[in-house]
């Protein structure tokens, strides 16, 4: 073949600054969530005279924030198109080990708390390693098995006993205030900031999104998919242990059957927050708002003493509402 003409390149420049679009900005999913939150607060205020005051709003957070810590790593996991249904069992196992370490082995409480965190992280690590080593099995299968296993171990350790009588200061986690702000709220905000930065401002977070959209392409692009997954699952275990500490502190004791079905609540909150289980989508701020929506809704309806079966229906309907609204094309909310 005889070379004839070489097509000259058409020189072009590309935009590198994203133009600010008010329309796009205000059509974000998180705004809708924020409106729902305002709606929930307004509804609660109109229903109960006890709802809208600082101490009520403040103390409510102590009620619902314990499991919210797991929502963050769960969001990361769901963005990676995985799921972890063993977190509830991890909460139980890590708290049981902590209590046994303190009560039966004579470990000082401070060290027992550290042990709790380590056990949680180890549970998560094991999930992560199994998922990475056995890629042909999905995370659902593996965490379903470890869910039964972890709780089983908790039962073996503590049998039918409750273990408690923690030192006085341990109660501070679940019940304490710092300058009038619940300690749990402070830690929650801190965790939200940390996870928000991790997800949105670091290379690690960018990798998580990349894996969620296309794990093969991520691997070919030099993203260490396995390591990222293991770390995120370990984080989930670690945060489950944090929840375990708060829960044990609030109850002053622990038992193998605590935190039953927490995983479903956590997944529901993450989904409401705009994290799609189809992977790659969602922002952390959405999950934070979702935590408060669900929490305040339950708390507020509790203040007018709605039966818990009604609450079940309300939460289920809210979850459906949240996933159906974006499918309506009329206001195009970007999830």
């Amino acid at each position, binding site marked *: *073949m*005889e*070379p*004839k*003409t*070489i*097509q000259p*390149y*058409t*020189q*072009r*420049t*590309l*935009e*590198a*600054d*994203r133009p600010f679009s008010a329309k796009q900005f205000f059509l974000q999913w998180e705004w809708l969530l924020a409106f729902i939150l305002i709606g929930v607060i307004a509804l609660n205020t109109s229903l109960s005279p006890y709802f809208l005051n600082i101490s009520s709003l403040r103390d409510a957070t102590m009620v619902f924030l314990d499991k919210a810590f797991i929502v963050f790593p769960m969001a990361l996991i769901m963005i990676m198109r995985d799921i972890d249904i063993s977190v509830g069992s991890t909460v139980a196992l890590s708290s049981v080990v902590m209590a046994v370490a303190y009560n039966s082995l004579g470990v000082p409480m401070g060290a027992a708390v550290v042990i709790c965190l380590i056990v949680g992280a180890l549970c998560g690590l094991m999930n992560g390693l199994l998922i990475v080593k056995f890629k042909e099995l999905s995370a659902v299968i593996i965490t379903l098995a470890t869910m039964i296993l972890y709780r089983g171990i908790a039962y073996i350790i503590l049998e039918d006993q409750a273990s408690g009588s923690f030192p006085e200061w341990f109660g501070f986690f679940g019940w304490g205030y710092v300058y009038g702000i619940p300690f749990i709220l402070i830690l929650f905000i801190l965790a939200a900031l940390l996870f928000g930065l991790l997800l949105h*401002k*670091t*290379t*690690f977070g*960018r*990798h998580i999104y*990349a894996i969620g*959209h*296309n794990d*093969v*392409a*991520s*691997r*070919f*692009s*030099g*993203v*260490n998919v*396995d390591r990222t997954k293991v770390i995120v699952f370990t984080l989930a275990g670690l945060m489950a242990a944090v929840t375990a500490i708060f829960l044990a502190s609030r109850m002053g004791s622990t038992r193998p059957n605590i935190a039953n079905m927490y995983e479903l609540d956590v997944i529901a909150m993450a989904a409401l927050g705009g994290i799609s289980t189809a992977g*790659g989508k969602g922002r952390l701020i959405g999950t934070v708002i979702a935590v408060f929506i669900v929490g305040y809704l339950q708390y507020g309806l509790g203040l007018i003493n709605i039966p818990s079966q009604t609450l079940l229906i309300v939460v289920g309907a809210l979850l459906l509402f949240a996933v159906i609204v974006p499918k309506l094309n009329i206001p195009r909310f970007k999830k």
Partner: protein
Amino acid sequence: MSEYVLELKGITKRFPGVTALNRVHFKLRKGEIHALMGENGAGKSTFIKVITGVHAPDEGEIFLDGKPIAFSNPTEAQAAGIAAIYQHVTNYPDLSVTENIFMGHEKVHPKTKRLLWKDMYREAKAILKQLGSSIDPKREMGTLSVAQQQIIEIAKAISTNARIIIMDEPTAALTARESEDLYRIAESLRDQGTSIIFISHRFEDMYRLASRVTVFRDANYIGSWDVDEITNDQLIVAMVGREITQVFPHKKHPIGEEVLRVENLGKIGYFADISFSLRRGEILGLTGLVGAGRTEVCEALFGITKYDTGSVHLKGQRLAVRRPKDAMKLGIGYLPEDRQKQGLILQWGIGRNITLPALERFSNKGWLTEKNEAQLARQLAEKVHVKAKSIFDLAGSLSGGNQQKVAVAKLLTAGLDVIILDEPTKGVDIGAKSAIYEIIQDLAMQGYGIIMVSSEMPEVIGMSDRIAVMREGRITRMLQKEEFSQEAILEAAMSEAPGKTKAG
């Protein structure tokens, strides 16, 4: 009775925002192989979907045997004797060969509607035999090779007693020999009176098979010709709309010191005894039939999979690559074959795609610095001449050629020494092809050592400095520039490999 079995008049199909077909025409005679050509995005795929009833046209009429007809779903088209063989994703990997063949037109008991498995197995076996294949009809589809799957697709079309078979790039994933089998099958079908619409990017397919050719461009009908009355150049003009030939830029790239040496690389069941070296500024063509193990060698070099024996040396140092990240850190980059699945994150903008492999570079201890990132992404995108409005345009919205450019740009972020390009122009239209060749030459000039895997003979010959030919997991021949010829490559790709042993 009309002269044509199938005739489409003034077909228009609009999707939100785009007109995919604009008043196009098409006529198909009985017992004719009719090539349909056009660049990517010309509307060929939509056209097929209109014929097979997946899409309903917004305007226009379809005549079958001279009678107007309207299909509302693929089943109706099938019943009318129209079958389509798609390029990919049309089979069911978990189901048996027989089921794949009969899906949608299963044989059922006339009264109870029970599936008649025995009849289906028997017929499947018969059809496969007719196609010269001995595949077990009970085998799971997912365990077959691409070429075998292609044969199953054809068997499927035959089983529907189709009078009109549409083949969408059937040879794209096939080797020359496998393509030859396919031609044979197509010709025998034609001789039995079946009409075939044949879509392909390869000119050789068209000249070899078709008697007529129709060209679409930018959703418009350009024209139809008898194959022997139109020249290659005329056809290209018709397709591209401007004069262009497939050209290989001949820039002089100085060849420097050795940068990569591979010794006796082997992986059980895939390849063995792979040895070669690569110099800076050199383009090493790696060719052979599909399935010869080329991609597997490259993936092992890049750390996607592990090799069992042998060693790799980069710049004199022995490498221990466990994952792609290591390879990139050390200086080996890889442009994967399937850019949609392996190369790019289609839901992301151009910029983010480009910076993904080297995020650490413009992050500060793990913290992203988005301004720097955007600037660098823009520079690189411009360097490879991506046609887009901004770096925030989604990768999925780009044409094949531009997607490939973005994928190449990804390799430029890391400080690489060796770049492996796996089928860099696959599924890319002619206009973009030459641009990609230009980029490859530029890279060689900058001193990268380049391994280019390709099945297209002219491309390998035109671009490479040396050519390694693989056959069944081994390098059978290393051709120097002066030895380049299609015959030599074919011979090396098909001949018995020397010193063949049983591995493992």
